[in-house]
Protein backbone atom coordinates (compact mmCIF):
# COMPACT_ATOMS: atom_id res chain seq x y z
CA UNK A 1 0.00 0.00 0.00
CA UNK A 2 1.35 3.38 -0.85
CA UNK A 3 0.91 6.60 1.02
CA UNK A 4 -1.62 7.95 -1.43
CA UNK A 5 -4.02 5.10 -0.78
CA UNK A 6 -3.69 5.53 2.97
CA UNK A 7 -4.14 9.28 2.65
CA UNK A 8 -7.33 8.89 0.67
CA UNK A 9 -8.74 6.47 3.27
CA UNK A 10 -7.79 8.81 6.08
CA UNK A 11 -9.40 11.77 4.31
CA UNK A 12 -12.59 9.76 3.95
CA UNK A 13 -12.91 9.08 7.69
CA UNK A 14 -11.10 12.04 9.12
CA UNK A 15 -14.11 14.19 9.99
CA UNK A 16 -16.32 11.42 11.28
CA UNK A 17 -16.49 10.93 15.00
CA UNK A 18 -15.71 7.32 15.67
CA UNK A 19 -14.24 7.01 12.22
CA UNK A 20 -11.20 5.17 13.49
CA UNK A 21 -12.83 1.74 13.27
CA UNK A 22 -13.94 2.32 9.69
CA UNK A 23 -10.51 3.62 8.83
CA UNK A 24 -8.81 0.58 10.32
CA UNK A 25 -11.30 -1.75 8.65
CA UNK A 26 -10.69 -0.32 5.23
CA UNK A 27 -6.95 -0.30 5.71
CA UNK A 28 -7.03 -3.92 6.76
CA UNK A 29 -9.21 -4.69 3.76
CA UNK A 30 -6.39 -3.44 1.53
CA UNK A 31 -3.50 -5.11 3.32
CA UNK A 32 -5.06 -8.08 5.03
CA UNK A 33 -3.65 -6.97 8.35
CA UNK A 34 -2.47 -3.88 10.20
CA UNK A 35 1.30 -3.60 10.24
CA UNK A 36 3.04 -1.43 12.79
CA UNK A 37 4.15 1.20 10.29
CA UNK A 38 0.57 1.69 9.12
CA UNK A 39 -0.74 2.18 12.67
CA UNK A 40 2.02 4.70 13.26
CA UNK A 41 1.18 6.49 10.01
CA UNK A 42 -2.53 6.58 10.92
CA UNK A 43 -1.73 8.02 14.33
CA UNK A 44 0.54 10.64 12.79
CA UNK A 45 -1.86 11.70 10.08
CA UNK A 46 -5.06 11.74 12.10
CA UNK A 47 -3.44 13.30 15.15
CA UNK A 48 -4.80 10.56 17.40
CA UNK A 49 -2.45 9.21 20.04
CA UNK A 50 -0.81 5.98 18.97
CA UNK A 51 -1.96 4.44 22.24
CA UNK A 52 -5.58 5.00 21.15
CA UNK A 53 -5.10 3.57 17.69
CA UNK A 54 -3.25 0.57 19.09
CA UNK A 55 -5.89 0.11 21.79
CA UNK A 56 -8.71 -0.04 19.25
CA UNK A 57 -6.74 -2.28 16.90
CA UNK A 58 -6.03 -4.78 19.67
CA UNK A 59 -9.50 -4.60 21.23
CA UNK A 60 -11.50 -5.89 18.28
CA UNK A 61 -11.00 -9.44 17.10
CA UNK A 62 -11.68 -8.35 13.54
CA UNK A 63 -8.35 -6.58 13.43
CA UNK A 64 -5.12 -8.44 13.14
CA UNK A 65 -1.64 -7.08 13.71
CA UNK A 66 -0.10 -10.17 12.21
CA UNK A 67 -0.32 -11.11 8.54
CA UNK A 68 -3.22 -13.42 7.85
CA UNK A 69 -3.42 -16.13 5.23
CA UNK A 70 -5.38 -16.03 1.99
CA UNK A 71 -8.30 -17.78 3.65
CA UNK A 72 -9.56 -16.95 7.11
CA UNK A 73 -11.41 -19.58 9.11
CA UNK A 74 -13.24 -18.28 12.18
CA UNK A 75 -14.41 -20.95 14.57
CA UNK A 76 -17.05 -19.90 17.04
CA UNK A 77 -16.33 -20.80 20.65
CA UNK A 78 -19.37 -19.09 22.10
CA UNK A 79 -21.33 -20.88 24.79
CA UNK A 80 -23.80 -22.57 22.45
CA UNK A 81 -21.13 -23.71 20.01
CA UNK A 82 -18.86 -24.71 22.87
CA UNK A 83 -21.35 -27.13 24.38
CA UNK A 84 -22.01 -28.57 20.95
CA UNK A 85 -18.38 -29.50 20.56
CA UNK A 86 -16.68 -26.49 19.01
CA UNK A 87 -13.39 -27.18 20.85
CA UNK A 88 -13.17 -30.48 18.94
CA UNK A 89 -13.77 -28.58 15.68
CA UNK A 90 -10.85 -26.34 16.58
CA UNK A 91 -8.71 -29.44 17.22
CA UNK A 92 -9.75 -30.87 13.88
CA UNK A 93 -8.79 -27.69 12.05
CA UNK A 94 -5.48 -27.62 13.91
CA UNK A 95 -4.82 -31.24 13.00
CA UNK A 96 -5.63 -30.83 9.31
CA UNK A 97 -3.76 -27.60 8.80
CA UNK A 98 -0.89 -28.25 11.21
CA UNK A 99 -1.21 -24.92 13.01
CA UNK A 100 -2.58 -23.78 16.33
CA UNK A 101 -5.61 -21.52 16.56
CA UNK A 102 -4.52 -17.95 15.88
CA UNK A 103 -1.74 -19.02 13.55
CA UNK A 104 -1.27 -19.04 9.80
CA UNK A 105 -0.09 -22.00 7.77
CA UNK A 106 3.43 -21.82 6.34
CA UNK A 107 2.15 -21.50 2.77
CA UNK A 108 0.10 -18.49 3.90
CA UNK A 109 -3.09 -20.16 2.69
CA UNK A 110 -5.05 -20.55 5.91
CA UNK A 111 -5.43 -18.61 9.12
CA UNK A 112 -7.41 -20.27 11.89
CA UNK A 113 -8.90 -18.06 14.54
CA UNK A 114 -11.44 -18.54 17.27
CA UNK A 115 -14.14 -16.04 18.05
CA UNK A 116 -16.32 -15.79 21.08
CA UNK A 117 -19.71 -15.56 19.43
CA UNK A 118 -20.91 -15.09 15.89
CA UNK A 119 -24.53 -14.56 16.88
CA UNK A 120 -25.64 -17.69 15.03
CA UNK A 121 -26.03 -19.83 18.13
CA UNK A 122 -28.91 -21.92 16.74
CA UNK A 123 -26.65 -23.06 13.91
CA UNK A 124 -23.78 -24.12 16.13
CA UNK A 125 -21.11 -25.20 15.96
CA UNK A 126 -20.55 -22.41 13.48
CA UNK A 127 -17.52 -21.87 11.30
CA UNK A 128 -17.06 -18.92 8.97
CA UNK A 129 -14.57 -19.27 6.16
CA UNK A 130 -13.94 -16.16 4.08
CA UNK A 131 -17.30 -14.71 5.07
CA UNK A 132 -19.24 -17.89 4.29
CA UNK A 133 -21.11 -19.48 7.18
CA UNK A 134 -21.06 -23.21 7.76
CA UNK A 135 -23.61 -24.50 10.25
CA UNK A 136 -23.75 -27.64 12.41
CA UNK A 137 -20.11 -28.34 11.65
CA UNK A 138 -18.96 -31.80 12.61
CA UNK A 139 -15.43 -33.14 12.68
CA UNK A 140 -16.10 -34.90 9.42
CA UNK A 141 -17.24 -31.70 7.77
CA UNK A 142 -14.01 -29.90 8.62
CA UNK A 143 -12.05 -31.71 5.92
CA UNK A 144 -14.73 -30.88 3.36
CA UNK A 145 -14.71 -27.22 4.35
CA UNK A 146 -10.95 -26.99 3.98
CA UNK A 147 -11.01 -28.81 0.64
CA UNK A 148 -13.85 -26.68 -0.64
CA UNK A 149 -12.11 -23.49 0.36
CA UNK A 150 -8.92 -24.55 -1.36
CA UNK A 151 -10.89 -25.50 -4.48
CA UNK A 152 -12.58 -22.16 -4.54
CA UNK A 153 -15.92 -21.52 -3.01
CA UNK A 154 -17.81 -20.86 -6.24
CA UNK A 155 -18.20 -24.60 -6.63
CA UNK A 156 -20.36 -24.66 -3.54
CA UNK A 157 -24.11 -25.06 -3.57
CA UNK A 158 -25.38 -21.96 -5.37
CA UNK A 159 -28.86 -22.15 -3.91
CA UNK A 160 -27.42 -21.88 -0.41
CA UNK A 161 -24.87 -19.22 -1.22
CA UNK A 162 -26.34 -15.86 -0.44
CA UNK A 163 -23.37 -14.06 -1.90
CA UNK A 164 -24.42 -15.03 -5.42
CA UNK A 165 -26.51 -12.17 -6.71
CA UNK A 166 -29.38 -12.94 -9.08
CA UNK A 167 -29.29 -10.77 -12.17
CA UNK A 168 -31.85 -9.73 -14.76
CA UNK A 169 -30.15 -9.22 -18.11
CA UNK A 170 -31.42 -7.46 -21.20
CA UNK A 171 -30.06 -6.60 -24.63
CA UNK A 172 -28.40 -3.19 -24.74
CA UNK A 173 -29.52 -2.72 -28.35
CA UNK A 174 -33.21 -3.67 -28.38
CA UNK A 175 -33.81 -3.60 -24.64
CA UNK A 176 -35.66 -6.95 -24.59
CA UNK A 177 -35.20 -9.27 -21.67
CA UNK A 178 -32.74 -12.10 -22.11
CA UNK A 179 -34.19 -14.10 -19.23
CA UNK A 180 -35.35 -17.57 -20.24
CA UNK A 181 -37.70 -19.24 -17.81
CA UNK A 182 -37.99 -22.31 -20.03
CA UNK A 183 -34.39 -23.23 -19.48
CA UNK A 184 -33.64 -22.73 -15.81
CA UNK A 185 -30.15 -23.14 -14.45
CA UNK A 186 -29.58 -23.51 -10.75
CA UNK A 187 -33.28 -23.09 -10.11
CA UNK A 188 -33.52 -19.67 -11.71
CA UNK A 189 -34.30 -18.45 -15.21
CA UNK A 190 -31.10 -18.48 -17.25
CA UNK A 191 -29.70 -15.69 -19.36
CA UNK A 192 -30.21 -16.94 -22.88
CA UNK A 193 -28.00 -15.80 -25.77
CA UNK A 194 -27.38 -16.90 -29.35
CA UNK A 195 -23.90 -17.87 -30.39
CA UNK A 196 -22.28 -18.23 -33.79
CA UNK A 197 -19.02 -20.05 -34.41
CA UNK A 198 -17.28 -21.50 -37.47
CA UNK A 199 -18.95 -24.82 -36.79
CA UNK A 200 -22.46 -23.37 -36.70
CA UNK A 201 -24.50 -21.76 -33.96
CA UNK A 202 -26.80 -22.43 -31.07
CA UNK A 203 -27.98 -21.26 -27.71
CA UNK A 204 -25.95 -20.37 -24.65
CA UNK A 205 -27.66 -20.46 -21.25
CA UNK A 206 -25.79 -18.60 -18.56
CA UNK A 207 -26.62 -18.84 -14.92
CA UNK A 208 -28.28 -15.65 -13.77
CA UNK A 209 -26.43 -15.80 -10.46
CA UNK A 210 -23.44 -13.57 -10.59
CA UNK A 211 -20.35 -15.42 -9.51
CA UNK A 212 -21.68 -18.74 -10.69
CA UNK A 213 -19.59 -20.36 -13.45
CA UNK A 214 -22.50 -22.39 -14.89
CA UNK A 215 -22.86 -22.00 -18.66
CA UNK A 216 -24.74 -24.50 -20.82
CA UNK A 217 -24.06 -24.64 -24.55
CA UNK A 218 -26.77 -26.02 -26.82
CA UNK A 219 -25.43 -27.72 -28.87
CA UNK A 220 -21.94 -28.01 -27.44
CA UNK A 221 -19.53 -25.71 -29.28
CA UNK A 222 -17.32 -27.40 -31.87
CA UNK A 223 -14.02 -28.69 -30.57
CA UNK A 224 -12.11 -25.90 -32.29
CA UNK A 225 -13.92 -23.11 -30.54
CA UNK A 226 -13.31 -23.68 -26.84
CA UNK A 227 -10.16 -21.65 -27.32
CA UNK A 228 -11.31 -19.28 -30.06
CA UNK A 229 -13.93 -16.63 -29.60
CA UNK A 230 -17.52 -17.04 -30.75
CA UNK A 231 -19.95 -14.32 -31.76
CA UNK A 232 -22.60 -13.70 -29.13
CA UNK A 233 -25.80 -12.01 -30.22
CA UNK A 234 -29.27 -11.17 -28.99
CA UNK A 235 -31.90 -13.85 -29.69
CA UNK A 236 -34.54 -11.13 -30.24
CA UNK A 237 -32.91 -8.55 -32.54
CA UNK A 238 -30.02 -10.69 -33.73
CA UNK A 239 -27.50 -7.93 -33.13
CA UNK A 240 -24.05 -8.88 -31.95
CA UNK A 241 -23.28 -7.70 -28.45
CA UNK A 242 -20.70 -4.99 -28.64
CA UNK A 243 -17.38 -5.31 -26.92
CA UNK A 244 -16.03 -2.57 -24.73
CA UNK A 245 -13.07 -4.25 -23.17
CA UNK A 246 -10.84 -7.29 -23.37
CA UNK A 247 -11.07 -10.24 -21.03
CA UNK A 248 -8.63 -9.95 -18.15
CA UNK A 249 -8.11 -13.71 -18.17
CA UNK A 250 -7.55 -14.54 -21.85
CA UNK A 251 -7.47 -11.24 -23.71
CA UNK A 252 -10.46 -11.99 -25.98
CA UNK A 253 -13.36 -9.63 -26.60
CA UNK A 254 -15.97 -9.31 -23.87
CA UNK A 255 -19.66 -9.16 -24.80
CA UNK A 256 -21.60 -6.44 -23.03
CA UNK A 257 -25.07 -7.11 -21.57
CA UNK A 258 -27.26 -4.72 -19.67
CA UNK A 259 -28.24 -5.69 -16.14
CA UNK A 260 -31.36 -4.46 -14.40
CA UNK A 261 -30.49 -1.56 -12.17
CA UNK A 262 -28.21 0.28 -14.57
CA UNK A 263 -25.24 -2.05 -14.40
CA UNK A 264 -23.41 -3.92 -17.08
CA UNK A 265 -22.23 -7.48 -17.27
CA UNK A 266 -19.36 -8.36 -19.52
CA UNK A 267 -18.77 -11.97 -20.43
CA UNK A 268 -15.83 -13.44 -22.26
CA UNK A 269 -16.63 -14.70 -25.78
CA UNK A 270 -14.27 -17.66 -25.48
CA UNK A 271 -16.31 -20.70 -24.38
CA UNK A 272 -13.51 -22.21 -22.33
CA UNK A 273 -12.84 -18.97 -20.50
CA UNK A 274 -14.84 -18.02 -17.44
CA UNK A 275 -14.09 -14.32 -17.58
CA UNK A 276 -17.02 -12.36 -16.21
CA UNK A 277 -17.09 -8.79 -15.13
CA UNK A 278 -19.94 -7.02 -13.44
CA UNK A 279 -19.43 -3.33 -13.73
CA UNK A 280 -21.10 -1.66 -10.80
CA UNK A 281 -20.48 1.84 -12.06
CA UNK A 282 -23.24 2.58 -14.53
CA UNK A 283 -21.43 3.65 -17.69
CA UNK A 284 -23.65 4.50 -20.64
CA UNK A 285 -22.77 2.56 -23.76
CA UNK A 286 -22.78 5.75 -25.82
CA UNK A 287 -19.73 7.02 -24.02
CA UNK A 288 -17.51 4.55 -25.76
CA UNK A 289 -15.07 6.20 -28.13
Amino acid at each position, binding site marked *: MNNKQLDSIIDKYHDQPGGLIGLLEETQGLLGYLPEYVLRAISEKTGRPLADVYGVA*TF*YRAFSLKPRGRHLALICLGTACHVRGAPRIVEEFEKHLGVKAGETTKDKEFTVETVNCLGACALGPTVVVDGRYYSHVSRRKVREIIAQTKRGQETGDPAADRRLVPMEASCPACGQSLMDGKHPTEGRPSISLEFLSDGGGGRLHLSSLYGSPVAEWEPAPPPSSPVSAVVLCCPHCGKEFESRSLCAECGADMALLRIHGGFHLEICTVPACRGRLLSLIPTPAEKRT
Partner: protein
Amino acid sequence: MIQLTINGLSTSVEEGSTILEAARFLGFPIPTLCHLDGLTPSGNCRLCVVEIGEGERARLVSSCTYRAEPGLKVRTSSERVVKARRMIIELLLASCPQSKVIQDLASAHGVRRQRFRQEYEDCILCGRCVRMCEEQMMAKAIGFRGRGERRSIGTPFDVQSDVCRLCGGCLYVCPACQLRCTYTEPEKAVCGGCANIAPPCIEKEQFSDLMCYMDPCVACEIQKDQ
Protein backbone atom coordinates in the same frame (compact mmCIF):
# COMPACT_ATOMS: atom_id res chain seq x y z
CA MET B 1 -28.79 23.62 42.30
CA ILE B 2 -30.03 20.10 42.75
CA GLN B 3 -31.74 18.82 45.89
CA LEU B 4 -30.97 15.26 46.91
CA THR B 5 -30.97 13.16 50.05
CA ILE B 6 -27.93 11.27 51.23
CA ASN B 7 -28.38 8.92 54.18
CA GLY B 8 -31.50 10.86 55.14
CA LEU B 9 -29.71 14.19 55.10
CA SER B 10 -30.97 16.52 52.41
CA THR B 11 -28.51 18.71 50.64
CA SER B 12 -28.23 20.75 47.49
CA VAL B 13 -25.33 20.52 45.11
CA GLU B 14 -24.40 22.20 41.88
CA GLU B 15 -25.70 20.73 38.68
CA GLY B 16 -23.30 18.24 37.18
CA SER B 17 -21.67 17.17 40.41
CA THR B 18 -21.50 13.49 41.22
CA ILE B 19 -22.94 11.60 44.17
CA LEU B 20 -19.39 11.09 45.41
CA GLU B 21 -18.75 14.82 45.52
CA ALA B 22 -22.05 15.45 47.26
CA ALA B 23 -21.40 12.74 49.86
CA ARG B 24 -17.91 14.01 50.54
CA PHE B 25 -19.28 17.51 50.95
CA LEU B 26 -21.55 16.19 53.66
CA GLY B 27 -18.71 14.22 55.21
CA PHE B 28 -19.91 10.72 54.38
CA PRO B 29 -16.88 8.59 53.61
CA ILE B 30 -17.00 6.60 50.43
CA PRO B 31 -13.91 4.52 49.69
CA THR B 32 -12.46 4.98 46.24
CA LEU B 33 -9.66 3.38 44.32
CA CYS B 34 -9.67 4.34 40.65
CA HIS B 35 -10.98 7.81 41.44
CA LEU B 36 -8.45 10.61 41.72
CA ASP B 37 -9.18 14.30 42.03
CA GLY B 38 -8.11 16.03 38.84
CA LEU B 39 -8.79 13.05 36.61
CA THR B 40 -12.06 12.24 34.88
CA PRO B 41 -13.98 9.61 36.81
CA SER B 42 -14.14 6.29 35.03
CA GLY B 43 -16.04 3.97 37.37
CA ASN B 44 -13.60 1.12 36.81
CA CYS B 45 -13.05 -0.29 40.27
CA ARG B 46 -16.68 -0.08 41.50
CA LEU B 47 -15.44 0.40 45.04
CA CYS B 48 -17.45 3.60 45.43
CA VAL B 49 -20.80 1.80 45.05
CA VAL B 50 -23.80 3.40 46.70
CA GLU B 51 -27.45 2.43 46.69
CA ILE B 52 -29.94 4.73 45.04
CA GLY B 53 -33.70 4.58 44.80
CA GLU B 54 -36.15 2.96 47.15
CA GLY B 55 -37.75 -0.39 47.75
CA GLU B 56 -37.64 -2.84 44.90
CA ARG B 57 -36.18 -0.33 42.51
CA ALA B 58 -33.14 0.34 44.64
CA ARG B 59 -29.95 -0.37 42.78
CA LEU B 60 -26.22 -0.06 43.14
CA VAL B 61 -24.37 2.53 41.10
CA SER B 62 -20.82 3.82 41.15
CA SER B 63 -21.00 7.16 42.90
CA CYS B 64 -17.97 8.62 41.14
CA THR B 65 -19.68 8.55 37.77
CA TYR B 66 -23.34 8.98 38.73
CA ARG B 67 -24.51 12.58 38.47
CA ALA B 68 -26.74 13.95 41.21
CA GLU B 69 -30.41 14.08 40.24
CA PRO B 70 -33.22 16.08 41.84
CA GLY B 71 -34.91 14.08 44.56
CA LEU B 72 -32.37 11.28 44.45
CA LYS B 73 -32.23 9.16 47.60
CA VAL B 74 -28.76 7.81 48.26
CA ARG B 75 -27.51 5.40 50.91
CA THR B 76 -23.76 5.23 51.18
CA SER B 77 -23.45 2.43 53.72
CA SER B 78 -26.54 0.27 53.64
CA GLU B 79 -26.11 -3.43 54.25
CA ARG B 80 -26.24 -4.13 50.54
CA VAL B 81 -23.56 -1.53 49.82
CA VAL B 82 -21.23 -2.79 52.54
CA LYS B 83 -21.62 -6.35 51.31
CA ALA B 84 -20.89 -5.37 47.72
CA ARG B 85 -17.93 -3.29 48.78
CA ARG B 86 -16.42 -6.13 50.78
CA MET B 87 -16.85 -8.45 47.85
CA ILE B 88 -15.11 -5.99 45.56
CA ILE B 89 -12.21 -5.70 47.99
CA GLU B 90 -12.02 -9.46 48.27
CA LEU B 91 -11.87 -9.77 44.51
CA LEU B 92 -9.18 -7.10 44.33
CA LEU B 93 -7.22 -9.00 46.97
CA ALA B 94 -7.55 -12.13 44.90
CA SER B 95 -5.84 -10.51 41.96
CA CYS B 96 -3.39 -8.13 43.58
CA PRO B 97 -2.67 -9.03 47.23
CA GLN B 98 0.65 -7.26 47.43
CA SER B 99 -0.71 -3.75 47.07
CA LYS B 100 -0.57 -1.67 50.18
CA VAL B 101 -3.59 0.33 49.11
CA ILE B 102 -5.74 -2.75 48.74
CA GLN B 103 -4.45 -4.30 51.97
CA ASP B 104 -5.31 -1.08 53.79
CA LEU B 105 -8.79 -1.11 52.29
CA ALA B 106 -9.26 -4.71 53.39
CA SER B 107 -8.27 -3.88 56.95
CA ALA B 108 -10.43 -0.80 57.07
CA HIS B 109 -13.51 -2.64 55.83
CA GLY B 110 -13.12 -5.75 57.90
CA VAL B 111 -12.25 -8.12 55.11
CA ARG B 112 -10.47 -10.98 56.86
CA ARG B 113 -10.38 -13.68 54.25
CA GLN B 114 -10.02 -14.20 50.57
CA ARG B 115 -11.94 -17.10 49.14
CA PHE B 116 -10.96 -16.98 45.47
CA ARG B 117 -8.14 -18.47 43.48
CA GLN B 118 -5.10 -16.43 44.39
CA GLU B 119 -3.33 -14.50 41.65
CA TYR B 120 -0.38 -12.19 41.93
CA GLU B 121 -1.05 -9.49 39.38
CA ASP B 122 0.85 -6.22 39.17
CA CYS B 123 -2.13 -4.33 37.85
CA ILE B 124 -5.81 -4.06 38.65
CA LEU B 125 -6.62 -2.18 35.42
CA CYS B 126 -8.04 0.80 37.28
CA GLY B 127 -6.76 3.10 34.54
CA ARG B 128 -5.43 5.79 36.86
CA CYS B 129 -2.09 5.87 35.07
CA VAL B 130 -3.72 6.02 31.65
CA ARG B 131 -5.81 9.01 32.65
CA MET B 132 -2.88 10.64 34.44
CA CYS B 133 -0.74 10.32 31.34
CA GLU B 134 -3.42 11.70 29.06
CA GLU B 135 -5.09 14.36 31.17
CA GLN B 136 -2.40 15.73 33.42
CA MET B 137 0.78 14.97 31.49
CA MET B 138 -0.78 15.51 28.06
CA ALA B 139 1.21 12.63 26.66
CA LYS B 140 -1.05 9.59 26.20
CA ALA B 141 1.98 7.38 25.98
CA ILE B 142 0.20 4.43 27.57
CA GLY B 143 -3.25 3.03 27.06
CA PHE B 144 -5.43 -0.04 27.45
CA ARG B 145 -4.63 -2.86 25.08
CA GLY B 146 -6.49 -6.00 24.14
CA ARG B 147 -9.68 -7.16 25.73
CA GLY B 148 -11.08 -9.56 28.27
CA GLU B 149 -8.57 -11.58 30.23
CA ARG B 150 -5.81 -10.35 27.93
CA ARG B 151 -6.48 -6.70 28.66
CA SER B 152 -3.42 -4.87 29.80
CA ILE B 153 -2.00 -1.40 30.17
CA GLY B 154 1.17 -0.36 28.42
CA THR B 155 2.76 1.36 25.48
CA PRO B 156 1.84 0.44 21.91
CA PHE B 157 3.83 -2.55 20.64
CA ASP B 158 5.52 -2.79 24.06
CA VAL B 159 8.35 -0.51 23.01
CA GLN B 160 9.31 2.76 24.58
CA SER B 161 6.89 5.42 23.44
CA ASP B 162 8.06 8.45 21.50
CA VAL B 163 5.76 10.70 23.49
CA CYS B 164 6.74 9.42 26.95
CA ARG B 165 8.80 11.95 28.89
CA LEU B 166 9.61 9.52 31.70
CA CYS B 167 7.82 11.81 34.13
CA GLY B 168 6.83 8.93 36.38
CA GLY B 169 3.30 10.25 36.85
CA CYS B 170 1.87 6.85 36.08
CA LEU B 171 3.89 5.22 38.86
CA TYR B 172 3.02 8.00 41.27
CA VAL B 173 -0.73 7.43 41.03
CA CYS B 174 -0.65 3.64 40.79
CA PRO B 175 -2.48 2.00 43.70
CA ALA B 176 -1.16 -1.45 42.89
CA CYS B 177 2.56 -0.95 42.50
CA GLN B 178 3.32 1.46 45.29
CA LEU B 179 4.67 0.10 48.59
CA ARG B 180 3.96 -3.54 48.45
CA CYS B 181 2.90 -5.25 51.61
CA THR B 182 4.20 -8.78 51.55
CA TYR B 183 3.82 -9.73 55.22
CA THR B 184 5.87 -12.66 56.29
CA GLU B 185 3.89 -15.07 54.17
CA PRO B 186 3.00 -13.52 50.86
CA GLU B 187 0.80 -16.43 49.91
CA LYS B 188 -1.56 -15.44 52.70
CA ALA B 189 -3.68 -12.95 50.87
CA VAL B 190 -4.95 -10.83 53.74
CA CYS B 191 -2.39 -9.28 56.07
CA GLY B 192 -4.78 -7.53 58.42
CA GLY B 193 -1.79 -6.28 60.39
CA CYS B 194 -3.04 -2.82 61.14
CA ALA B 195 -6.45 -4.08 62.12
CA ASN B 196 -5.12 -6.34 64.86
CA ILE B 197 -3.80 -5.20 68.20
CA ALA B 198 -1.80 -8.41 68.39
CA PRO B 199 -0.32 -8.62 64.91
CA PRO B 200 0.11 -12.18 63.73
CA CYS B 201 3.53 -11.54 62.35
CA ILE B 202 5.24 -10.78 65.66
CA GLU B 203 4.74 -14.27 66.93
CA LYS B 204 6.65 -15.67 64.03
CA GLU B 205 10.27 -16.56 64.48
CA GLN B 206 11.35 -15.04 61.20
CA PHE B 207 10.72 -11.60 62.59
CA SER B 208 13.66 -10.18 60.71
CA ASP B 209 11.93 -11.08 57.45
CA LEU B 210 9.08 -8.78 58.29
CA MET B 211 8.35 -6.66 55.28
CA CYS B 212 5.04 -5.11 56.16
CA TYR B 213 4.80 -1.51 55.09
CA MET B 214 1.31 -0.95 56.42
CA ASP B 215 0.89 2.49 57.76
CA PRO B 216 0.13 2.61 60.59
CA CYS B 217 1.04 -1.05 60.97
CA VAL B 218 1.20 -2.21 64.53
CA ALA B 219 3.74 -4.83 63.73
CA CYS B 220 6.01 -2.34 62.07
CA GLU B 221 5.64 0.22 64.85
CA ILE B 222 6.64 -2.35 67.45
CA GLN B 223 9.67 -3.26 65.43
CA LYS B 224 10.68 0.39 65.29
CA ASP B 225 10.41 0.76 69.09
CA GLN B 226 12.73 -2.12 69.84
